[in-house]
């Protein structure tokens, strides 16, 4: 049953040192504000899961909080590299980063298995790819009916999943719409669920493409308008493409990055816009 509470308290209670943490949102609805709260609280040794790490995980990685990354595509969409991710992988700065690397289809199905509380999922995937040789979460199964060999991926069940949505009602029921990616699966696969929302409304009106998370499948709802910035919340904000482009030179330089985090995230009352 979701409690409506402050972001500080919800993150403090629900995100623990050493957790496997998924912050999902496929370009849209990325929970940046919650990630910044994690940075402020210094919750460390995280294993981060996300199909597309995006700038949000570049920030967490650069802040030194991440032990392991579970992912399928780690770039700055439309811009280029995630420099903090690369620096961690290539040079171990600020700490070495273990990788569990998949394809999108594999990651999506890992969440599906997690939400379905199955230990694995089956797909036609990874064929001829070196990816399967570098992870212990890809294997194979043989179809008992046809004898065909297929890829198996291990279920992904995060300790905690954080998503951003447009609206919640006072009971803590949540609705998101637009591109909803793998958020439902990531939430239902998790042990704990934290949702940040643009606003609380009296009643959730069914929307085209709406995904509802009933209050009894989440733990906390936090009202954080603009909490997806520089990602966006359709109907509320637009994607700040300029920020994504401006991030490139900041993230290229360790000092510039650290300064940016200090000034925009760690400083009391700072709001990264």
């Amino acid at each position, binding site marked *: 049953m979701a409690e409506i509470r402050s972001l500080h308290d919800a993150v403090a209670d629900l995100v623990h040192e050493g957790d496997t943490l998924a912050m999902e949102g*496929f*370009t*849209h609805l990325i929970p940046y504000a919650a990630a910044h709260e994690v940075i402020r609280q210094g919750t460390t040794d995280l294993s981060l899961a996300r*199909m*597309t790490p995006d700038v949000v995980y570049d920030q967490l990685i650069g802040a030194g909080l991440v032990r392991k990354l579970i*992912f*399928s*595509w*780690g*770039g700055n*969409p*439309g*811009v280029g*590299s*995630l420099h903090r*991710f*690369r620096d961690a*992988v*290539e*040079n171990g700065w600020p700490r070495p980063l273990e990788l569990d*690397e*998949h*394809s*999108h*289809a594999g990651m*999506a*199905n890992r*969440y*599906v298995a997690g939400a379905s509380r199955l230990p694995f999922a089956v*797909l*036609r*995937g*990874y*064929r*001829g*790819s*070196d*990816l399967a040789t570098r992870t212990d979460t890809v294997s194979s199964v043989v179809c008992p009916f046809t004898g*065909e*060999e297929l890829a198996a991926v291990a279920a992904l069940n995060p300790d905690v999943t954080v998503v951003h949505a447009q609206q919640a009602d006072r009971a803590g029921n949540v609705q998101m719409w*637009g*591109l*909803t*990616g*793998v958020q*439902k*699966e990531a939430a239902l696969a998790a042990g704990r669920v934290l949702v940040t929302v643009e606003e609380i409304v009296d009643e959730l009106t069914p929307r085209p*493409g709406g*995904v509802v998370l009933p209050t009894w499948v989440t733990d906390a709802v936090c009202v954080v308008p603009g909490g997806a910035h520089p990602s*966006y919340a*359709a109907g509320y904000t*637009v*994607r700040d*493409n*300029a920020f*994504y*482009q401006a991030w490139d030179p900041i993230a290229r330089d360790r000092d510039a990055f650290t300064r940016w985090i200090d000034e925009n995230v760690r400083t009391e009352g700072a709001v990264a816009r």
Partner: protein
Amino acid sequence: MTTEDFTRDELMEVSAARALAGARTCFVGIGLPSTAANLARATVNPGLVLIYESGTIGSKPTRLPLSIGDGELAETADAVVPVPEMFNYWLQGGRIDVGFLGAAQVDRFANINTTVVDRGPGKPQGRLPGAGGAPEIASNCGEVLMVLRHSTRGFVRKLDFVTTLGHGSGPGDRERLGMRGAGPVAVITDLGVLRPDPATAELVLSALHPGVTVEQVRAATGWDLKCADTVGVTEPPTAAELAALRALKSAGREGR
């Protein structure tokens, strides 16, 4: 504007768009493939159904999306589906004619590396973004098109990592691995077009862009590139193609 005023990149983009003539559905990678697919809709294939891995089916953006999840892709789509459904029912379901991919490294059998590159002794491997949707796009679409700029960094003798299988080590490999579809049928670059030789599955030079020589292409290719029996020359972009391409790009820039 005359048809003479165009860049090599524009030649590449226009050629890539033309390769989509006749296709019904295209799974679109971001970057150059997205430019090509949107240009195809504006020129040779107005009915082309664009499918992005963020879950949009039938997107009709009026400007080039910066990312694969731009709001306009969803707002203009015939349908928006969850990401797992996209990969399972639509891509793996064999619903998509053409997968359009970019690449960091390609080898002579059109295998793709987007994971890590060697940077020489004593240096750590250079990290690339990773697989994204490519391995399953390449194994489940009817055919695969690729677009990337031509250089010996990109067209290599041996991949440092096989992220996505094209034709493996030659004919029969796809079938042996149970991969569906024809695999890569063309690699479009800023110098010309490579296609797999029907007998060997090895990429050979199939067309040159206007003003480019065979030697230039061979010099930009990391293996001993062969030529097809006949090497054509790409038709220069038409004024309409160039106008459409530039309109898409400037609308894209304005939108940012």
